[in-house]
């Protein structure tokens, strides 16, 4: 009897133990489940930061790698300074023209516009419209001198042209038996800075047995540019020794053309911008040198100009900032950081 009772109580104790374990397991499971569900919800919650000012960046070609690089630099610098730069017209179902994008920026009442300008009348009007709506405009890379933009931040086109000219002279010096033929691929649209570069190159190359020629490439749409480069080069009777490209897309198109036509070693390129493709091409020898903008400096200058304007009004903002560039060739390729952490130049 005594044994029976004790066995019974052992059974009850074991059962009670199982119940306790189950209870603890259930509670633990619930807590885990709660946490899991919470984590799931947290994933859904979008984390974002708020800024005091919004600037619009309107590039000539928002999809070009240069524009993206510059935009990235804008974002990084602006964020550190309490404002945000929006690439107006991006992530939309429609690709708007530059004029539309300026209009959008004006309508959405941004605190400032960073615009890759041009000499057109329409752009001038839009810049003035923005100004009239109290929105300061900073032109970048390319200016619209007659407009009411507060500043221009850009390369000294003449010195860039001079750099190309020097590079041509170097190439000429390597092989001085016959004149060096060079082709400059200009932007088909009337743009001020191309002309300046062109002029500078001509000046630098004159008297050095360099035969310079130029072609205008249609860069109005991304696809047109590549096709036009092909057509123009195919139409040539003889391939030039050097092809000078004045934008990144043209540079990449020409690199591809030279590789496809097996012209590496025969024709070299003086490129523009520092995309991965171009840097690789320098390494392989198809590009002799490329001019790359110091995007970080450019971003700092633009954002600072707008902030300065917004903080202190127009009078204290400089009209012209010279942006820095760097010439990348085989010699300094290894030390060059495309992310632009080096701010010199």
């Amino acid at each position, binding site marked *: *009897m005594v044994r029976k009772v004790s066995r019974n109580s052992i059974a009850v104790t074991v*059962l009670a133990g199982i119940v306790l374990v189950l209870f603890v397991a*259930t509670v633990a499971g*619930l807590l885990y489940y709660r946490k899991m569900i919470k984590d799931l919800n947290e994933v*859904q919650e*979008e984390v*974002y*930061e708020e800024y005091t000012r919004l600037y619009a960046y309107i590039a000539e070609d928002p999809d070009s790698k240069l524009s993206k690089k510059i935009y990235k630099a804008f974002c990084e610098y602006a964020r550190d300074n309490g404002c945000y730069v929006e690439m107006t017209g991006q992530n939309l179902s429609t690709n708007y023209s530059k004029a539309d994008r300026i209009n959008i920026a004006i*309508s959405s009442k941004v605190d400032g516009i960073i615009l890759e300008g041009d000499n057109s009348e329409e752009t001038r009007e839009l810049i003035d419209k923005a100004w009239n709506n109290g929105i300061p405009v900073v032109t970048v890379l390319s200016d619209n001198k007659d407009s009411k933009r507060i500043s221009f931040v850009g390369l000294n086109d003449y010195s860039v042209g001079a750099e190309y000219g020097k590079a041509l002279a170097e190439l000429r010096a390597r092989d001085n038996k016959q004149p060096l033929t060079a082709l400059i691929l200009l932007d088909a649209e009337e743009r001020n800075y191309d002309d300046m570069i062109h002029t500078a190159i001509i000046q630098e190359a004159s008297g050095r047995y360099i035969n310079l020629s130029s072609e205008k490439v249609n860069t109005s749409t991304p696809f047109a540019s590549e096709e036009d480069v092909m057509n123009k080069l195919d139409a040539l009777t003889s391939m030039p020794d050097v092809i000078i490209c004045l934008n990144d897309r043209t540079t990449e198109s020409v690199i591809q053309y030279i590789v496809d036509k097996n012209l590496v070693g025969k024709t070299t390129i003086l490129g523009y911008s520092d995309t991965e493709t171009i840097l690789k091409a320098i390494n392989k020898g198809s590009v002799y040198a490329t001019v790359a903008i110091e995007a970080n400096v450019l971003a700092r200058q633009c954002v600072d100009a707008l902030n300065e304007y917004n903080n202190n009004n127009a009078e204290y903002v400089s009209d012209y900032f010279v942006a820095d560039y760097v010439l990348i060739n085989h010699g300094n390729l290894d030390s060059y950081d495309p992310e632009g952490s080096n701010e010199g130049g």
Partner: protein
Amino acid sequence: MRVDKFFSNIKISRKLVAVFLATSVIAMCVNLFIYINLNQALDKINSVFSSNISLNELSDNLNKTHQGLTGYLETKGTDDLELYFASYQNVKQMMKLLNSNVTDNNVKLAERDIGKMLDTYLKTADEAVQAKRGRNIDEYTAKYNECTRIKDYLNTYIYSVNNEQFRTNSENYMALVNSLRYTEIMSMLIFAVASVMNVLLIIILTSTITRPLTRLSAKAEEIISAGSPENIEPLEVRSGDEVGKVTMAFNEMLASIKDYIARIRTQLITQSEMKEKNLLMETHLKDAQLKYLQSQINPHFLFNTLNAGAQLAMMEGADRTVEYIRNMADFFRYNVKKSSETVKLSEEIELVDSYMYILNVRFAGEMLFEKDIDESLLNVMVPSMIIQPLVENSIKYGIKDLEPGEGKVTLSVYREDGYACIRVSDNGIGTDEEIIEKIMNHEKKPSETRGVGITNVMSRLDLYYNNKEVFEMKSRKNEGTHVTIKIPLEDTNV
């Protein structure tokens, strides 16, 4: 342990209620948990696409505003103006829901842009309406074109944000559906675990209720198999509920039964002792009564009187009278003399002789008396006054009513199987079986005439010989009665 004690002291009905409450509460909690989780999940799913819905509404209202504006500018129609203002107000209301801060989140930033563009649109539209009222065609045309452009931008933005949100919302939706699946699995798991817990709880709780009952019934079985509760230990009381009380009552009952049995045992012993004592008392009383009766007759006076009578008779020459009176004197002398317990058998026989002589004188010699005596047994010691009452009985109830000279009493003394047998027989009318039986069973009361002497003799013999069956009585109708006393020879002091 304290909880266990507390629980064991609760009433069974409350325990049962506790069991059902506990299991019900568990089940309810599980249901509540599942319900809340499902509800939350459903609410979230509902809220997921609400942003898309509100953006679509915004777009609709914007288009209506523009439609109203267009209509008004074209025809200056009141309906159009009403539509314009109504939609205008709606748009204004909805604008408040949009994010207005600058953020690095694309959707939020687009919301901000939409808000600002709407603001510009509404302002421009207002200006267009004002210009219309001022009939400034150029201005309202320019403003209207501006409005149309902004509206197009807005629609593109709304469409794009909608798409973006739909993508995010779809991701959220998928995450929610996943979480719903987790909820489902979790709910099922918890339901299963809770069911197992319920079953275990019921087993535990009911066992605490039934265990004392089982112990009690086991104890009862133990008592049944033992046949007597005397050596059974009481059951330990572990709970304060009804079963505990029943157990206590059971223990008390067990104790009182044991007590009762012990008391009955003592009582029985006392009773038998009392009975023995009573018998002795009775005997002594009888003795006392006898002695009292004997003492009533002054023996010396009687003897002197009888002796005087005998001398008188002798002087008158009446020999038979002398003989008669002498026998009488002998008879009474025996009574006086033999006040002691035991006498020789010969003395008992002499007494019978005297008695018979007296009777024969009384009844003119009609009683026949025969003796057949084994002389060797004459010295056997027997209780006094055992033969004369038997002879007296035989005469009184046996042969008294017979014709004179026919009645006969025979006294035989003989040896048989170590016994000295004394038999008194008569040839009288006999004794009924019923009466014999009553006599033998000591049921005859002294008040009942027949057998008074015999009963007395039997009682004394029983006492003297420790209830050994020394007395025997046989009779047949009209064939007389035979009474035999068997004196064990080893018990007699010869």
